[in-house]
Each structure stands twice: as structure tokens, then as C-alpha cells.
């Protein structure tokens, strides 16, 4: 049977069988759609990428005010454009680890305070210059200087000194940080000649493509870099078009004007997938939709009340109805499988009896006020209504107050004791916890203050032993799950779609949009 499905897959890849026919036959053999799709993707990869042609992407989020300066990139379109022409020192690998890009290898001192990156020899920029250690130093200085507007400034703060030493670059940190390679994989930190100080938006880098024309917020065209050192970049030309309107983006894919789109609206994604020439891909991600309680404000200062609310939410129902299935259930911690060093904790489920038990123990009486708004996350008022219903079956009365979108982030979020909100995930646990759960964090939107948690966070940062660190993060997640002010019912997926003219899309890299921004250089146009 296994041979049979492989045969069918090779037929499908060769175009003798449509994808739909293949899935139908695979189902007859007892394969689920997911595993059949996987077989198909593997066959396509085995058939090998093809070179040449034009790969066209229709992306959401670009604006005419965007710049080619990597320091100022804030949206998906900007990320994809930056990935075409530039490269970072290191990059996230598909298995969740770190792989070298412009740095061939790296090592840390035993105390994780001094890091040495060895540059890949013989790499040149698209203007012919060689990449030097000095360029790396200048790039880091540009992103951490006092007057920088770089989006990477936050992660550069802990770096005390960067210096060039032959073909290596040495980073000295204020305090131990085992996550430095993850931080340096940030997409803003593109290595530019002279650090990009003279002309930050020149788009001269070492990437697989060279920008030919750039009309920001409208259309960017790039051609293959003939001198690229690596093996990425199959299409001869890549065209990125900004299409901010959801319906227009889907229509552009359906009519064959683009080959790849991002942000397919979950409400229509299943309909879109039914079209014969389109495949919808869903990638689990670190972004999550949340209900946040202030742990220091009555009545939420009582952990039993917090537990009552946590047991009173129906997570699966939220994923089904708010995300239309394009997501995964949360477990009252901001960490999910898209993080490195993730440990699965016991899943908390909807349990009205336990909710009632904790409510009784808390001694709270009367209703609880939840504030929400349309822009706190897509479908937030609906999610609040679902929460209200599931709580009422546990005998807890929830009042929902709808706040105006305007001013929600300044007046309600991080201000009022119980509201809806969202978080976009961070590359590492350390980043996520430091941003929002350390007692002194600016964005500690649950007013969480746990000494043990704070100490573990600092200790884990300097721990180079992965097994020990993994255990520490698991313990921290457990503390948050059982004591924190976060109710996290769901993680939202990235929903993206590709047309049948192209191949090579892999949805397997958790937590990252469009193959971590490499869709343009890792996909190919079918001959």
C-alpha cells in the first residue's frame, strides 16, 4: 500500500494526476488528508526544485511609507523584501535550532558572556565588495546607537561591546545570555557594507536576489544574484506585490496573478482551499489571543478566582468558532510548540465542576467585568460572549463591556484589571517572559509578581546546558499556568495559500510566517 501511495504521489507531482484526484485516491487507501499531503510534499521535494521563471507573491501589510532600510522594517512585506537581498549572521533552522548564514560557526565562553562568530570566507555583496568583520561591527553599532530607530534596538541593549578580530566578530554581553544566536537571527540585523551607515536603504547585501526596482508599498522586483554563495533562490525573478485588501488578495491568487499569498482570512480559508488550483497552508505559530487579569487587583488577586476562570473557559470551542479551526488550544502559558526547548505540559480543559469548586474556595460573590473591543483580536467580542456562556454553566456571572477601538491600547489594555488582548510571540522563551512576565517588565500586563519566577528567568538566561534550560522553562510555564493572570485559550495559525504553478512550500517551520520569510528563495516555479 505504501508503494502504491508513493506511485500515486509521483504521478501527481508529474502532473498526471490532479492534487484533488490524488487526495481522493489516497483517502481510498486509508490515508488522512494531512498525511497524504505530506507524502505529496515529500515527492515534490524529491522531484527536486526547478530553476527559472518568475515567482509572484501578493502580501498584506506593506505601505508606501515603508523603507528598504532593514532597521525600519515592521511588516511581512518588508520582511520578505529584506530576505531577498540581505542576510543575517545566523538563522533559525527548520528543526528549531540555529544555522549559520554569514557566520560559518560560533562559540560561547563558558559563562555565556562572550560570543565569537567566525565569518564565512569569500562571501561578497551584490556590489562586489567582500564581507568583512568590520561590516558586522558597524552594522551592530548602527542598530544599537543612541539615535537609532532600529526595530532591533530592544534586543541589542544587553550587548556591551562588539569588536572585529581578523575574520571573527566578538560580542561581549552585560550579563550571561545563552540566547544570543537567536537574537542575532532577528531580521532587522542584515549585514550591510560599512554597516549601512552611509546609505541604509541601498539594499546592497549578500542575499540570493538583487533588487531591480522598488516601489515601496506597491511592487518590488528582484532578480537572481549570480554570485550568491549558497544554494537558495530557484526562480530567476521574484515579484512582490502589496495587496492589503483580503478579498483582492485571494482573488489575485485565484485568477493566477500571484502564486503565493499570506493571511488568508480564517473565515473563508476552507472555501478558498476548495478551489482546484489552490492549496491553503496552515502553520502553527507563537501568536496568541488572551484574556488578561491583573494579579494585584481585587478580585483577581485571589488565585482561586483566577483558577475558576481558567477552568471555566472552553478552549476547543474558541479554536473551532473564533479561529475556524486554524489554530491550536492554549494552556494558560504564552509558550507553545513553536518555541525551542518546549516541554508539553498537561493540558487544562474546560471543567465546570472544578471552576465551581475554585469559585467557592475563593469566596467571591457577584459578577466579574470583562472589557473587550473589536481590535483587541479578530473576533474578540464573540470570544467574550463564548466565555460568558461557558462560565455561566459553572455558575459564574461574567459581564462583558464593549470598549471603543480608539484608545483601547492606551486606556484599557495594561490599565484595566480584566480585558481581551493579543500577543505576537517572540523568538525565545526568554524574550517572551522578559517582555511580559518578569515582575519589572514594562508590558507586564497581568501584574505578575513572582520572585521564584524572576530568579529562574535570570538563571535560565545564563544556562548553556540545553536539558537544564528546557526543564527550567517547563517549570516557569507551570508556574504561569497555575498562578499567573493569563488565560490563553488559543494560538492563532498563519494561514497562507499557494497556486498550482509553484511548488516547494513547507509549512513545517513552526512559529514563522511564510517559511520564516524564505518562501521566495526556497520555493520554485514548476517547469
Amino acid at each position, binding site marked *: 500500500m505504501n508503494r502504491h501511495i508513493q506511485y500515486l504521489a509521483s504521478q501527481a507531482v508529474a502532473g498526471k494526476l490532479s492534487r484533488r484526484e490524488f487526495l481522493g485516491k489516497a483517502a481510498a487507501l486509508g490515508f488522512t488528508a494531512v498525511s497524504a499531503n505530506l507524502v505529496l510534499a515529500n515527492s515534490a521535494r524529491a522531484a527536486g526544485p526547478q530553476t527559472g521563471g518568475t515567482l509572484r507573491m*501578493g502580501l498584506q501589510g506593506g*505601505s*508606501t*511609507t*515603508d*523603507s528598504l532600510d532593514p532597521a525600519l522594517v515592521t511588516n511581512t512585506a518588508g520582511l520578505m523584501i529584506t530576505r531577498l537581498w540581505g542576510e543575517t549572521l545566523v538563522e533559525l533552522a527548520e528543526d528549531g535550532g540555529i544555522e549559520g548564514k554569514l557566520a560559518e560557526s560560533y562559540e560561547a565562553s563558558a559563562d555565556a558572556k562572550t560570543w565569537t562568530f567566525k565569518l564565512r570566507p569569500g562571501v561578497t555583496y551584490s556590489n562586489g565588495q567582500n564581507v568583512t568583520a568590520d561590516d558586522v561591527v558597524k552594522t551592530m553599532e548602527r542598530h544599537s546607537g543612541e*539615535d537609532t*530607530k532600529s526595530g532591533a*534596538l530592544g534586543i541589542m541593549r544587553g550587548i556591551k561591546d562588539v569588536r572585529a578580530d581578523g575574520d571573527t566578530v566578538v560580542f561581549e554581553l552585560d550579563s550571561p545570555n545563552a540566547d544570543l544566536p537567536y537574537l542575532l537571527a532577528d531580521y532587522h540585523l542584515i549585514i550591510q557594507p560599512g554597516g549601512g551607515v552611509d546609505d541604509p536603504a541601498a539594499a546592497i547585501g549578500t542575499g540570493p536576489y538583487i533588487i531591480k*526596482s522598488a*516601489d*515601496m*508599498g*506597491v*511592487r518590488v522586483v528582484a532578480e537572481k544574484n549570480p554570485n550568491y554563495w549558497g544554494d537558495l533562490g530557484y526562480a530567476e525573478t521574484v515579484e512582490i*506585490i*502589496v*495587496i*492589503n*485588501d483580503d*478579498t*483582492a488578495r485571494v*482573488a*489575485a491568487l*485565484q*485568477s*493566477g*496573478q*500571484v502564486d503565493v499569498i499570506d493571511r488568508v482570512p480564517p473565515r473563508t480559508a476552507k472555501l478558498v482551499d476548495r478551489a482546484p488550483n489552490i492549496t491553503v497552508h496552515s502553520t502553527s505559530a507563537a501568536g496568541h489571543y488572551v484574556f488578561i487579569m491583573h494579579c494585584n487587583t481585587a478580585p483577581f488577586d485571589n488565585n482561586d478566582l483566577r483558577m475558576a476562570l481558567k477552568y471555566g473557559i472552553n478552549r476547543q470551542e474558541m479554536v473551532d468558532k473564533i479561529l475556524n479551526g486554524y489554530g491550536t488550544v492554549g494552556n494558560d502559558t504564552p509558550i507553545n510548540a513553536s518555541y525551542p526547548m518546549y516541554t508539553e505540559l498537561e493540558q487544562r480543559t474546560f471543567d465546570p465542576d472544578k471552576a465551581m469548586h475554585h469559585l467557592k474556595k475563593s469566596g467571591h460573590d457577584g459578577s466579574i467585568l470583562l472589557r473587550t473591543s473589536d481590535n483587541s483580536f479578530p473576533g474578540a467580542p464573540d470570544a467574550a460572549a463564548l466565555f460568558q456562556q461557558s462560565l455561566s454553566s459553572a455558575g459564574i456571572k461574567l459581564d462583558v463591556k464593549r470598549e471603543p477601538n480608539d484608545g483601547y491600547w492606551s486606556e484599557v489594555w495594561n490599565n484595566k484589571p480584566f480585558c481581551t488582548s493579543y500577543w505576537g510571540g517572540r523568538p525565545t522563551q526568554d524574550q517572551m517572559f522578559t517582555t511580559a512576565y518578569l515582575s519589572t517588565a514594562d508590558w507586564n500586563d497581568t501584574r505578575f509578581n513572582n520572585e521564584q519566577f524572576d530568579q529562574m528567568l535570570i538563571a535560565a538566561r545564563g544556562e548553556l546546558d540545553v536539558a537544564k534550560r528546557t526543564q527550567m522553562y517547563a517549570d516557569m510555564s507551570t508556574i504561569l499556568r497555575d498562578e499567573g493572570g493569563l488565560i490563553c485559550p488559543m494560538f492563532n495559525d498563519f494561514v497562507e495559500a499557494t497556486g498550482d504553478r509553484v511548488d516547494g512550500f513547507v509549512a513545517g517551520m513552526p512559529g514563522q510566517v511564510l517559511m520564516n520569510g524564505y518562501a521566495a528563495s526556497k520555493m520554485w516555479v514548476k517547469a
Partner: protein
Amino acid sequence: MSPIVKLLAQRIALSLLLLLLISAVIFAGTIVLPGDVAQSILGQSATPEALANLRAELGVNDPPVERYFSWLFGAIQGDLGTALTSGQDIAEALSNRFWNTLFLAFWAAVVAVPLAIFLGLLAVRYKDRWPDKLISAVTLASISIPEFLIGYVLMYFIAVKLRWFPSVAMINDSMSLLDKLSAIALPVAVLTLVVLAHMMRMTRAAILNVMQSAYIETAELKGLNAFQVIFRHAFPNAIAPIVNVVMLNLAYLVVGVVVIEVVFVYPGMGQYLVDHVSKRDVPVVQACGLIFAAVYIGLNMIADIVAILSNPRLRHPK
């Protein structure tokens, strides 16, 4: 000087005066907008020194009147300043987009205006009979549906199902005229549907109004057929109101097509303006406002001039 030249000169001078007043209003409006430009550029990470430096650099510390005049003289010489967000020269960035907007508006007008006038004449000819009612029903329906919805419907049937024309109206310099026309076919169709009803109804009403006159009866009595009566006698006398409504709609085609630009991803001025308003890029907003005002005033001036030239009573005032 002949009275007609004098009249026209007066008209043009008035328009320029109006534009000057509007430039002051635009400038005043953008400086009383809430929010500090320097703060919104630097964002969260702003230090007091950086804010002060940037304010000095932007010249926001100078008195408003002084800033207004330096802006105005720059604008008259074609220097609209540089965009705060991208540092680009505004005049350069805008000219490209302005031509795109005009290109779309021009072709929409080329289709819509003759069609509207023809349908209007047809409706008059068959007044209260089925062609009149059908034309009115269809055009009124198309003006009543929101334009983005018409856009989506056309996109679904013509671009996705039939694949006759592309759904993304992206044009650039390397395309031939025929490619460009194919690319903008759908937005032109939507814009035509949106402006058709207004112009058609006005044509119909204006001509019907004239049709009540005694000289029309005379024309009928001397044996002309209905179309000849409408073309030779009614239409020339109805030109002024028709030109007025045509110009209003042309102005709409230039300044009011933001939604269509977004839906069809057309690189025109509307999208450019909206992006910069949301980032508080004041110089760009001022420049766009000024250009839109100039277009509006210019087209209305042309309507007035045509009205003067087509009306013997205005042409030869006593």
C-alpha cells in the same frame, strides 16, 4: 478688451484666489491636527533631546505664518518639500502617482462620459417607455451598490471565473499601452458604473427641461424627427448643466477613488495619501490636499467657462 475675454479672466482670477484661500485652510488644518509630528516620527523611543533636534530640523518652532509663506512659495515653484517618513522628494514621488491617477480617470471618463450622454439621449427619446425605464433602473442600481462590492463582483466573474482581465490593476513604465489598458479594465468598468447614473440622469433631466420650450415645438412642427430635435435644438441648450455634472464626476474620478485603488491595488494618489495620513506625514498630506483642491477648482472652472461660452446670454451680456 472684448467682454468675453474679460469675463474669462475674471473667472480664472477668482479660481486662483480660491485656491490660495484653500491652501491657507489646508495648512491651518494640518497644523491644528492633534499630535506632535516629531513625537509620531520618533515614536516610543523618543528622548527630549531627539525631539528638540527634530523639531528644529522640521522647522515647527518657526511662527506658523512664516512657515505658511515659505511652504506656499515652495509649492508655487514646484517644490513640495520632502516626506518625513521616507525622506523622498514629494513632487517626484507624487508626479508618478498623479499621472497614474489621471490615466485611470482619463480612461474611465473616455468610456463613461459618451456612454452617459448617449444613454441620456436615448432615455429622452424613449421617455417613459421601456428603454428609458431599463436605463434608469440599471444605472440607479449601479450607483446604489457600494463601489467596493461592484469591484468584488466584477473581480469574481471577470477575473477569477472568466479570466478575461487581471484582478490586480498594477501598471508600470515597462508595460505597453495595450497591457496597461488591459490591467485597468476592471477598475475602469467599476468607475464607469459608479459615475454613469449621475451624468445620465442629469443629461436626461436637462434635455427634458429644454424639451418643454416653445422652440422645440416649432422644430417638431417643421417636421424634424425626434433625434434631430434633440441633437440640433435641445442638446446645445442643455450643455451647461451637463458639462457641470460631467466635470463634477471627473473631479470625483481624480480625487475620490481611494477605495477602488485599494481594492484593485492601483498605484494612484489615494493610496499614497491614506498611507501618509496614518503616519502623520504632514508635508505629503498638505501636498496631496493642494493638488486635489487644484484639480477640483480647475475642473469646475472649465465647467463655468464652457457654460459661459455655450450661453449666448452670458457671451453677450448687455
